[in-house]
């Protein structure tokens, strides 16, 4: 049974699982120090130079699993010890160059940066090269390689640079906590802080009867995760962990679709506010456009606010694919409504820390939201939902010209054009992860089929319209009158 895409995820999971296990037992303070040796036993290294380094890195993962460096406000942290200081020379000619006659590389280079040695092999003059990459594209042997760090390449917010010690550094002023680097670093040297201990505390309290009910608010992308079991079994597993009940964040998405479509019709131009990494990107990279952001809370915060309005003592935990949500619920006003955040990776660790085999559980049910709320999880879904919201609100006259942006690079271009007033659209749907939330860094798996799974889950919704799903919710909630952004 394959639960994760990579071994890096598996190592992170082991640290999370062991931390959670000890937390349930109440022995974490005493026994945390023994976790690295439990995960890396013996004296034969399998990943690094020696077992001692391997254990030292696990100890860093344990720290992050326990909440990480609280003095660093960013939820994404570099594990300096694990950074392999990858080469980063940019374009270079490898030994695959055969010194051919055509010299397409030389022809295409506008800077005259290609020279040849006595064996006619190409060399790149770094004083002239501007790293445009044309030579690599035309080489018939693919002999020209681009040595950039996977972390830097993955970071479309351009927040990663290299420190003097060659270890990666994250610039908090630019980082939007999307987590792309966490998933892309082949050494697992960048990790998201975990709040799994806060969740264990909430659940322990709730189970003991002394505490308050804990509501799990799950993101619709859950339908593409835990593929080894049925969705109903995941719900049953959550209740076994001690959650009082499981509510779809997608119902919050229905509420947002309703309020955002009306807000759009009123203002005439809007940037979506569902994706916390997009919101953060607008604020940090295009502050002049901040006023264009929708006033709606994100779907998970919207539904959590509603839960707290009907059960004021409730505690809510958002469970999703997203590392940026951890930032949203720790350093924005939405933190008032969402008490803690877990990723799907962390949920898997939590199940296993209690030895809950969800495959063995009877299926429970999960059904609150409409088709439209559920397809928020994939790129383009929000724009579809907004069009529906306009129709259902009787605002058919308003012509929606949506610009769905799949990933940071797409919305950077859209925001630049909006700044210059050359964008032919009145709504930008910004999703930082390529593919939408299903491409999130906290997903267990990132597969081609995930979009199909989300669409299928959407079609299974009993409610076919947004209005049906939000029928009983008071207008003050659906219209987000106390919007706080």
């Amino acid at each position, binding site marked *: 049974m394959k639960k994760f895409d990579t071994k890096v995820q598996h190592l992170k999971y082991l640290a999370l699982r062991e931390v959670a296990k000890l937390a349930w037992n109440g022995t974490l303070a005493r026994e945390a120090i023994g976790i690295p040796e439990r995960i890396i036993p013996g004296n034969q290294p399998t990943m690094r130079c020696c077992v001692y380094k391997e254990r030292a890195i696990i100890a860093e993962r344990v720290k992050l699993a326990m909440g990480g460096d609280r003095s660093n406000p960013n939820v994404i942290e570099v594990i300096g010890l694990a950074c392999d200081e990858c080469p980063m020379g940019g374009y270079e000619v490898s030994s695959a160059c055969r010194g051919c006659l055509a010299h397409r590389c030389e022809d295409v280079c506008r800077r005259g940066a290609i020279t040849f040695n006595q064996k006619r092999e190409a060399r790149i003059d770094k004083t002239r090269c501007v790293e445009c990459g044309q030579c690599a594209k035309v080489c018939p042997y693919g002999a020209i390689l681009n040595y950039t760090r996977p972390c830097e390449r993955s970071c479309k917010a351009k927040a990663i640079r290299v420190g003097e010690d060659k270890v990666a550094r994250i610039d908090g002023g630019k980082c939007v906590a999307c987590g792309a680097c966490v998933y892309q670093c082949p050494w697992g040297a960048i990790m998201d802080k975990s709040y799994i201990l806060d969740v264990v505390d909430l659940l322990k309290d709730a189970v003991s009867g002394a505490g308050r009910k804990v*509501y799990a608010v799950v993101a619709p992308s859950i339908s593409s995760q835990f593929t080894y079991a049925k969705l109903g079994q995941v*719900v049953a597993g959550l209740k076994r962990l001690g959650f*009082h*009940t*499981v*509510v779809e964040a997608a119902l919050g998405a229905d509420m947002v679709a309703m309020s955002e479509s009306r807000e759009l019709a009123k203002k005439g131009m809007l940037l979506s506010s569902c994706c916390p990494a997009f919101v953060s990107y607008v604020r940090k990279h295009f502050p002049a456009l901040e006023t264009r952001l929708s006033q709606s809370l994100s779907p998970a915060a919207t539904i959590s606010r509603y*839960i707290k309005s*009907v*059960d004021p003592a409730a505690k809510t935990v958002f469970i999703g694919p997203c590392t940026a949500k951890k930032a949203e619920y720790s350093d924005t006003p939405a933190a008032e409504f969402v008490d803690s955040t877990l990723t799907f990776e962390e949920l898997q660790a939590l199940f296993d820390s209690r030895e809950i085999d969800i495959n063995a559980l009877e299926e*429970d*049910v*999960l*059904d*609150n939201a409409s088709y439209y709320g559920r397809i928020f999880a994939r790129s383009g879904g929000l724009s579809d939902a907004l069009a529906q919201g306009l129709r259902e609100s009787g605002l058919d006259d308003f012509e929606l010209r949506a610009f769905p942006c799949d990933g940071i690079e797409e919305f950077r271009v859209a925001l630049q054009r909006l700044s210059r007033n050359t964008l032919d659209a009145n709504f930008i749907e910004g999703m930082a992860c390529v593919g939408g939330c299903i491409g999130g860094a906290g997903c267990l798996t990132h597969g081609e089929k995930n979009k199909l799974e989300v669409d299928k889950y959407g079609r299974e919704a*009993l*409610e076919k319209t947004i209005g*049906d799903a939000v*029928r*009983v*919710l*008071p207008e003050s909630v659906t219209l987000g009158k106390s919007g706080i952004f």
Partner: protein
Amino acid sequence: MLKLSVCIGSSCHIKGSRHVVEDLQYLISAHNLQELVELSGTFCMGKCQQGVCVTVDDALSTVSPDTVNAFFEKEVLAKVV
């Protein structure tokens, strides 16, 4: 003000809580009781076997789309009119 809460949690939802909500909304406005009855949706009351769960103030009733009329007359109309 009579407080009427219908469970819109997953289990009750599948048993038809939306129809119960729709009918109650209709009945409340048909009898002009908007000022006297507050209808809201809530999540799991922990009595899924007895769903669709509806509370009138804090007393729990089991209602289905078929029994909603009778429920309304007995538990709501009788109390506010």
